[in-house]
């Protein structure tokens, strides 16, 4: 076996795993705070990418405006979704809310096709394109810088939620909404906040994913792998999202190199089935099984 090659593959796998981890973080944030399984996470990420496309390519805004504008725009979308679709269903069975997010995914795909058509598009280049060498191993520059942004953003989000009292409020709400409410924590606002932050994180990962592989109305499929990541990691565990993301990235890279690209998803889902058989609540999830 060629160890240098294996190292290179592993690096690529970990780097794309970083992107999974970022998107998984967006998913976990909503699940942790509101117990909503947001199946439309991939589509929200797509909207972020398309907004960035519009601001940077169509309106030709400079990057430092286009990226924040796309992120804020998607955050606004998150707020609207929470207020109009999720909050009215508060207290309804989880399956109803789950179905709403399934519908939301289709609506978002439809909207994107109406506004931007179903054609594949390329995002403007904004990352350096000199190859990155780690020791002897070569790493595609977009993947490397994408992973770098993901790591920095994940760290920032974790710090904010550890030390800012809004983050503490979110953790308290996740643990016991009724008690949090009577402690003076504005629980509805925490719910909104979780959706907004989740949408903004999704937008960033959408911009990165889109600039690596281009954008199209079917890029929500990325969300499918993200779902695998969060189920493997445990739906409500931030640590699980990170470890699960890296793990799935690694599995996919190995499978597509040594077995062939068509085995990539197969390998991922075999891992999913195995994890669910051994630990039904995910690697790091809370030990409670909820029926959907």
């Amino acid at each position: 076996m060629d160890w240098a090659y294996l190292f290179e593959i592993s690096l690529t796998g970990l780097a794309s795993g970083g992107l999974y981890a970022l998107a998984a973080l967006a998913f976990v944030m909503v699940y942790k705070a509101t117990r909503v399984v947001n199946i439309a996470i991939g589509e929200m990420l797509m909207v972020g990418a398309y907004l960035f496309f519009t601001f940077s390519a169509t309106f030709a805004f400079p990057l430092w405006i286009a990226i924040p504008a796309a992120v804020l725009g998607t955050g606004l979308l998150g707020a609207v979704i929470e207020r109009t679709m999720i909050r009215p269903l508060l207290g309804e069975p989880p399956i109803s809310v789950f179905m709403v997010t399934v519908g939301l995914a289709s609506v978002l795909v439809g909207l994107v096709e109406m506004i931007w058509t179903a054609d594949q598009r390329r995002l403007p280049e904004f990352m350096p394109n000199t190859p990155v060498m780690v020791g002897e191993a070569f790493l595609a520059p977009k993947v490397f810088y994408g992973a770098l942004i993901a790591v920095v953003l994940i760290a920032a989000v974790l710090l904010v939620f550890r030390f800012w009292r809004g983050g503490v409020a979110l953790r308290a709400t996740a643990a016991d909404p009724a008690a949090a409410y009577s402690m003076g924590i504005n629980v509805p606002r925490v719910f909104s906040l979780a959706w907004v932050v989740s949408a903004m994180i999704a937008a960033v990962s959408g911009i990165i994913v889109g600039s690596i592989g281009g954008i199209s109305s079917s890029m929500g499929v990325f969300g499918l792998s993200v779902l695998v990541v969060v189920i493997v990691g445990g739906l409500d565990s931030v640590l699980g999202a990170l470890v699960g993301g890296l793990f799935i990235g690694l599995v996919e890279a190995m499978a597509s190199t040594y077995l062939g690209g068509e085995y990539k998803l197969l390998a991922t889902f075999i891992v999913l089935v195995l994890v669910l058989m051994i630990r039904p609540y995910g690697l790091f999830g809370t030990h409670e099984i909820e029926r959907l």
Partner: protein
Amino acid sequence: MVTHPQSSPTAAPPLLQVDGVTLSFGGVHALSGVGFDVAPGSITAVIGPNGAGKTSLFNTISGFYRPTSGHVRFKGQDITRLPTPQRAKLGLGRSFQNIALFRGMTVLDNIKLGRHAHLKSNVLDALFYLGRARREEAALRADIEERIIDFLEIDHIRHAPVSALPYGLQKRVEMARALAMQPEILLLDEPVAGMNREETEDMARFILDVREEWGITVLMVEHDMGMVMDLSDHVIVLNFGQVIAQGTPAAVQGDPEVIRAYLGSGDVGDLRRKLHASTTTQGVL
């Protein structure tokens, strides 16, 4: 028969006023026309058989339920329509019947969260741990560590995760969290339920001290009659969602209506009719 707080020698206006509160779920009246006053600085107890509406009453006072009619006034202000978090800011603290601590957090974090409503620092202050956030955190720490933790004698477990603690200590942490809210009135829902003799006596001592040393008014729901009669200045008896008696512990204990609610009427014929009624309904079911 009834000693209203207004007629007490202090004659201070009531801190909390529940006025004609009715709460219905569908056709079921959980509370109907419940009214009473809580005098400032008093320990007031709400008692009654299971299902009498005690917890519904607490949830109405703390804002989880909106009454169908009637009013709740706190410090003279009508809070009937005020959302729960705003009530917490006004000075209404509560504990829960089934322990509602934030699992996965330490004792100290749980207690600090009680102060949430009163903190003002924003995300930027917190990120850089500057100015307001630092001052608030220091003041909070001093207050909580010196007063609340010492007071409730939970110093040795402050860094322990709450889920690992025995039941009695969890109840105590919940009380500490409620105290951290800087309440003017403390609503305690069955503070000694499931506790042994020693734990109950500790808790009774804490409740008395909360009133004596901190000047906090206490309104509690409790089943332990010994404790209610020892501690309370004023007792309110609920049955089927209605106030059937209120007054001093002694007055309430002697009230025939109360005895009937708890023990039945004492009339053998009445008991026989009750039994008959229950067997026939079971037969129908």
